[in-house]
């Protein structure tokens, strides 16, 4: 009887125990199932991040994009941590908050990126226009100046960088386009600054040129023919009675903007000269020629002063044989400092003037503003 009672007790104990376990499991399942998992929020955050990346937020809204990535990563780390805890003690609130924040910031990053990319695109386009104007200015005012190779190269490099920038812009690489544009801008600014300085410095002598030109024109008023050479315009005028009766295109040496001061400098002298002799065909290698009295007294004086000051090397000579000669019409400045003309033009000039004719060579008859057509540079 006692054994039977004990067995019954155990049986009941087991039933009660199992019932408790069953109830506990059921309650736990209910509790767990009531808990909101962060799955959907994380999916949304991930997709928002992906869209932000697609909008290149990592480039144009870097800070926000990084924040969003960090929040997503934090959500994932926290989720993993929570999952390692006992199921009944898990709390996904923070994870959901991180995921929601990540989505919000990713959206902001996307919007900011689109806005910034759009602005950048507009800025780069505006910069292209500004750069094209600078290139145009160079082509209009400076292209024909005897600029140094570095200036010339800087101009060409700027054009190449501009092309590269345009390609980058077309392919949507706006940051690259901006970097390349900035390089192009640096080069064109260097070229234009150097060229404009050269031009302005050169025109510092304009008052002297003006005086020389006026004197030459005045000297022609008695009926004498006077030759007036405008280096910037590359024109040789023949004046008589105060009026230009003929004009010819001329060429000079590659260093024509400088005033000749020594032998071999490829510069054309500026000042008052005279034709000392006329050379017929056969007497010159340049078809026909008219020799000038360079160096004149003033040239010699200047040469001596500069040599004393050490501005000209001790071994340098002053140079001579500056002529107005033929074989020109080449379209560029090729002489050793002489004034080059087309053969048919020197034929005409040869007939017009004689030995002793005054030849005045100036940098420019017109002031800088007129030469540049009023272009601001």
């Amino acid at each position, binding site marked *: 009887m006692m054994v039977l009672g004990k067995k019954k007790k155990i049986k009941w104990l087991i039933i009660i125990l199992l019932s408790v376990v069953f109830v506990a499991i059921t309650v736990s*399942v209910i509790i767990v199932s009531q808990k909101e*998992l962060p799955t959907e929020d994380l999916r949304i955050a991930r997709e928002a991040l992906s869209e932000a990346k697609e909008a290149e937020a990592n480039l144009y809204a870097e800070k926000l994009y990084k924040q969003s990535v960090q929040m997503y990563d934090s959500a*994932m780390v926290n989720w993993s941590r929570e*999952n390692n805890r006992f199921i009944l003690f898990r709390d996904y609130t923070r994870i959901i908050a991180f995921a929601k924040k990540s989505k919000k910031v990713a959206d902001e990053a996307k919007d900011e990126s689109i806005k910034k990319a759009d602005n950048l695109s507009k800025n780069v386009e505006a910069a292209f226009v500004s750069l094209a104007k600078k290139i145009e200015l160079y082509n209009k005012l400076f292209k024909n100046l005897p600029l140094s190779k570095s200036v010339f190269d800087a101009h*060409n*490099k700027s054009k*190449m960088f501009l*092309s590269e920038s345009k390609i980058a812009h077309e392919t949507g690489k706006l940051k690259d386009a901006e970097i390349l544009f900035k390089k192009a801008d640096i080069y064109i600014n260097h070229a234009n600054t150097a060229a404009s300085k050269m031009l302005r410095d050169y025109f510092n002598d304009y008052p002297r040129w003006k005086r020389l030109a006026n004197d030459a024109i005045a000297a022609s008023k008695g009926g004498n023919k006077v030759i007036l050479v405008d280096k910037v315009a590359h024109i040789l005028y023949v004046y008589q009675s105060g009026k230009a009766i003929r004009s010819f295109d001329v060429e000079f040496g590659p260093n024509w903007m400088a005033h000749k001061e020594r032998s071999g400098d490829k510069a054309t002298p500026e000042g008052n000269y005279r034709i000392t002799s006329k050379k017929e065909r056969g007497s010159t290698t340049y078809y026909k020629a008219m020799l000038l009295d360079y160096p004149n007294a003033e040239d010699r004086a200047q040469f001596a002063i500069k040599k004393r000051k050490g501005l000209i090397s001790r071994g340098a000579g002053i140079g001579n044989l500056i002529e107005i000669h033929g074989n020109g019409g*080449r*379209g560029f400045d090729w002489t050793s400092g002489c004034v080059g003309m087309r053969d048919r033009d020197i034929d005409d000039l040869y007939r017009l003037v004689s030995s002793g004719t005054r030849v005045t060579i100036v940098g420019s008859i017109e002031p800088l503003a007129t030469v540049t057509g009023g272009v601001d540079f």
Partner: protein
Amino acid sequence: MKSKLIIAIAAMGVAVLFSSCAKVPQAEVDAATAAIQEVKDAGADLYVPEAYQALVDSMKSANEKIEVAKAKWFPNYTKAKDLLVVVSQMAVDTKAKSEARKVELKAETEALIVEVKALVVENTELIKKAPKGKEGREALEAIKSDLAVAETTVTEVEALLANGDLIGSNDKIKAAKEKATSIKTELEEAIAKKGGK
């Protein structure tokens, strides 16, 4: 006898409960992560950015699936494992795409180099035929200088290519081609004008 049966069933239940706690597929995760890193090292984020981004997104999705499974009473990683297999395969495909794009880009750049070099030679010949009157010669000097820049760019592109900068070299050679082509057009127009006179 009955009580023994009940105890056995309860014990089995507990055993099943614990045996159901499957392990996180860490080996698959590690393999997929390594594969993605390999793809990135191969430059896929530069050469096939869309495909690379899709790969990264898929890996994130797989990680989420793992956590979803972990959050359950009885974790089941089958879906996550399946996705990780897909990710690993995607990594292989993306790497192949990236390599193919690199080959394509290199071939395109090399072809453009040949093209630009030919244009430089052609332009040099055209310069000889171009009119050299007033303005003409100066314009030609400017063109020569422009051409020299295009020529220098080719050298730069070759150096970039040798250094493995496939995108930079491709962009640069395209600009050089544009320049060389515009010079050619300019010269041909000048020659045509001369012929027309």
